[in-house]
Structure formats: structure tokens, C-alpha cells
């Protein structure tokens, strides 16, 4: 990057504020190949009931951070804690039973199964609670109830995203991780995703979302992180970040100024 004077997150203040968080990650270093780290000391926390948005330019490590939290990327050093328990590098299926829900960016539904079967898959580790959770999800996404017998593969992008979110909610997660839920959708459907995410959060689920639509994401977030080169470069309330010229600079370079 051209500029080096970008202030980073004040780590001590961040650590103090992270106290009592439902999910927190400290100083994560992780990557896909040995010796090539994508995360270079990323910090993050999410309090009970909070909606946290993560934005940043391509390649900043947003999705990798989310995958590391969910055990899909091996963490080299650093810790992830869920309600105080160390869950660093635990398997994804274990994390699901412990209360983390994850919605990947792509391939997040079973196309040959019906909507209802997709939701059943979400709760296969706890089949007895299907009925109760199905009602919860149905209330959030009534359109899915209407089409419950339809094959998920025949749905449009926006609906698939609802199915994927619905499935992740079937296990009653304490934290829901969303990886770019609005990617590839039209503006109206993107807005729908943000509205639905806010409603899920209002229903009591803590949410951490990675997003490419930065301003919408920051608008609905209680707090945001801006990632750059594998670290959490800035954090603040959504409103603070949305107006910060440095955030724009991260996306578009130095705007032709020195």
C-alpha cells in the first residue's frame, strides 16, 4: 500500500472492550498455505445481541477471518473464544453444536433437496428440535414456508440466501456468521438481505457479517471493522466508519492525493 501512516486499532482499548463478549478472536494468524499468512494478527469481538459488520477491500482477509472463526482455516497462532471457552481450531461440526452458525458465500444450499429438507439438514444433529426451529425460521422468512416443498436449486439467488440463513438458524446459534450475503444480488435483493439480517439480529441472534456492500453493511451494524492486509485496521460504530475518508482511501487507493 502506498501510505503507511494508517492508524491501526488501539489494541489495549479493544481488548478491554472485548471483555464479556460472546465471541472473540485475539491476534489471529492464519492462512491456507504454510508460510503464507492471510491473517496477520486480526482482532475481533462480538457482544451478546450485537450486529458486527466487517468490510475491507478485496483480499483484505475478511472471509478468511470468518472461516478461521468457524474452523475452516487452520489458525497458526491466536485464540478464538466462545462465551469464554477456548474453541480455537475446533471442527466446524463441533462448533455448530456449540452455537456458531455459518453461512458460506457460495454453495450454501443443497440444490437437489427441497427447502424443508434443507432446513432439516441444518438441524440433523438435533432432529427433535426441528419443529420449534422451523416455526422460528418460518416467522422470519414466510416466503420459504409457502414454497417449502420446492427444490432449492430452482430458487433465485435472493431466496437461496434466505434458505442458507434459515438453515444456519435451525441450530439456534448464539452467533451467526454471514459471508458476503448480498454478493451477486440485485440492489433490491441486497436491501432485502440487509433487512432480514437486521431482523434476525433483533430476534436475539448476535451476527457477524462480512460484506462487499460497505455502506449498507455499516448502516445496519452496531459496530464495524475495516480490514486491511489481514489485520483489523479500524473499528468504530457503523456511523463513524461510513464517513471516514480513510475507509474510502482503503478501497480506492490514495484518491490521487498525497
Amino acid at each position: 500500500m502506498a501510505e503507511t501512516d494508517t492508524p491501526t486499532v488501539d489494541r489495549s482499548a479493544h481488548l478491554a472492550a472485548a471483555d464479556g463478549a460472546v465471541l472473540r478472536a485475539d491476534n489471529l494468524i492464519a492462512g491456507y498455505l504454510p508460510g503464507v499468512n492471510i491473517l496477520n494478527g486480526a482482532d475481533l469481538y462480538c457482544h451478546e445481541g450485537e450486529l458486527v459488520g466487517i468490510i475491507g477491500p478485496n483480499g483484505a482477509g475478511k472471509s478468511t477471518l470468518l472461516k478461521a472463526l468457524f474452523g475452516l482455516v487452520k489458525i497458526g497462532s491466536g485464540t478464538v473464544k466462545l462465551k469464554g471457552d477456548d474453541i480455537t481450531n475446533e471442527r466446524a461440526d463441533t462448533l455448530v453444536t456449540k452455537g456458531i452458525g455459518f453461512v458460506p458465500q457460495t454453495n450454501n444450499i443443497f440444490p437437489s433437496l427441497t427447502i424443508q429438507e434443507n432446513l432439516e439438514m441444518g438441524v440433523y444433529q438435533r432432529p427433535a428440535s426441528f419443529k420449534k426451529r422451523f416455526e422460528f425460521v418460518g416467522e422470519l422468512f414466510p416466503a420459504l414456508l409457502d414454497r417449502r416443498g420446492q427444490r432449492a436449486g430452482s430458487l433465485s439467488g435472493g431466496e437461496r440466501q434466505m434458505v442458507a440463513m434459515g438453515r444456519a438458524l435451525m441450530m439456534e446459534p448464539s452467533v451467526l456468521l454471514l459471508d458476503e450475503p448480498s454478493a451477486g444480488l440485485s440492489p433490491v435483493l441486497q436491501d432485502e438481505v440487509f433487512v432480514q439480517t437486521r431482523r434476525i439480529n433483533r430476534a436475539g441472534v448476535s451476527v457477524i457479517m462480512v460484506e462487499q456492500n460497505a455502506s449498507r453493511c455499516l448502516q445496519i451494524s452496531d459496530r464495524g471493522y475495516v480490514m486491511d492486509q489481514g489485520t483489523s485496521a479500524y473499528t468504530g460504530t457503523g456511523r463513524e466508519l461510513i464517513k471516514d475518508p480513510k475507509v474510502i482511501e482503503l478501497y480506492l487507493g490514495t484518491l490521487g492525493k498525497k
Partner: protein
Amino acid sequence: MPADVTTTPGGNTSAAQAPSDNATGVDVSAARSALNDVEQVPGAAKPDPILVADGIKRQFGGLTAVDVEHVEIQRGVITALIGPNGAGKTTFFNLLTGFDRPNEGTWSFNDHSLNKVPAYKVSRMGMVRTFQLTKVLSKMTVIENMLVGATGQRGEGLFSAMFAFLWRSEEDANTVRADDLLERFLLIKKREDFAGSLSGGQRKLLEMARALMANPELVMLDEPMAGVNPALKQSLLGHVKSLRDEGRTVLFVEHDMDMVRDISDWVIVMAQGQIVAEGPPDAVMANPAVIDAYLGSHHDQDISEEEEDQILAEANAEIERSHEAAHQEDHRRG
């Protein structure tokens, strides 16, 4: 092998050699300075366009991925096509190069219409592309990959292939050219290695070198910097610039803004399938429409709780429409 190569005669091989040679006879500096007079608006007319597209539309079900009213690419310069994820850049590339068909629209290269021209013919006409995820032939050697890139070979026919004397001299000439390009792209040491054994950055180089085997007038690069390590980036940048300096037109898609700023003469910005801005790099990156495109547009105001229901209703209507459209498409295709 490269040593004796230089002594081999080959009349048609001189074109794409040293960067100082101008392969196409285009006055590069004139082409670049001509851009100063171009209006900085989407769809601006260029003084000497090599590629012109009109009313290009591509829909996937209910989603309009590309909806470009008009665009012209200036000959002899480096044009960057940028935009946030999902803006339709690669889809637009695929449409222009015949790898995908638009629902409607017309486009032409050097005033030849490219409607319904298949990809392989597009490349023979002098418009060659590379891919974001490289498509080297991994079970062939580097030099074999290069030779596959040569076009219009006499030995291609079933009949002529049997008579080596018909094509041997041409094959030799192609090999000379391939070796020169491998030298230039620092791949000559890998000549006999399987392409599958190359690193990601080397594959990008090989793809670029192979594209040059067709001696193209227009080189289209889809994210040349993606997955390339920082050490190789500088040399890749140099290679792209040298393409321009030898008179080729370059159009590239890229996310690396430093690269865009560094080497582009002109920048075209896409968002939601449309062209939202055009201009020189600095002007474009300070353009509010571009900042909106990257950070999300028209979003200065919050979604109020009252608006939520309205948005959901609109979304539902759009989903209904897309089902309808998909249904009709199924119907049409029988």
C-alpha cells in the same frame, strides 16, 4: 536452445520481438495524448476506437448481469475495466470475446461485427484474452503451450498434417517466436517443464506469452495480478506496459487499484452491469459515482423500520418476476 535460435531465419517472426519494436504501426504517444480531449463520461466517444459495443445486455434469469449502453476502447492505449465484485466485468469480457452470448446488443472489432463470431475466430481476428483463473494446459510442456497459441498454421488440416514439408518451416519459425517470448517473459528456463508445475504467477506469464503467439492487436487480461506474489507484480506491470509500447491495445480487468493507477491510460468503471464512469485514473478514483459504486450507492440514508416492509415487498415482487422470467426461458428452450 535459445542461443542457436537467434540464428534461425524466419521472415514473419520479427513482429512481436523486442519491446521497442512497434508491431502494429500505431503511434502510441499520439493515441495516449488524444485521450486528453475525450469527454470524461460513461460511453464517451474515442478518437480511434478499436472496439465498440452497443446495447449489450446479458441476463441470467431475472438478474441483469451486463447492461452496457455504449462503450469504445481507444486503440494503442491501456484501458482498465474496474468495479466492485459482481459488477459484470468478467461477464462483459466473456461476451466481447465470444465465450458467452448476450441477450441483445452489437459489438465490433476494427469495424468487423463480432456478433455470433465464436471465440476461436475472435482470437484469429487479433483480439486475444487471458483468464482470471489461468487456463494453461497443465499436462503439456511450457513450449507446447506456446505453440498451441500460434494461429493459422498450415499443418492444421487433416490432409496437410501428413506432409511435414508443408509446415515444418512454419513450425520452426513458430518455435523461434515462442522461445523469444519465453525469454522475454522469463520462462525460458521452464521451457521443457509441464505447465502444471508452474507457480500461479508463472502461469499468468505463460498465458500472456501464449496470447502473444497469435500476434494480437488487442490483448484482454482478466485480473492479471490476482494471485501473483508481490515480487512478480512489478515485472508483470512492466510486461503489460511493454505490450502497449509495441503498439498493442490492452484492456484489463483488475482489482489492484495501485496497478490500475500505475499503468492505465484510461479507466472504465462498471457497477451493477452498467458503465458508471470513465476517465483518467486519478479523476475516476475521485469521482463520487465511483466511490458510491465501491462502497454501495444511494445509501446515505438509513433503512428505517417503516421502509423495511416496503423493501421486503419489492424484493418479493422481484423474485416473482425472476421466477416468471426463468419459466418463460424454460418454455422458449422447450
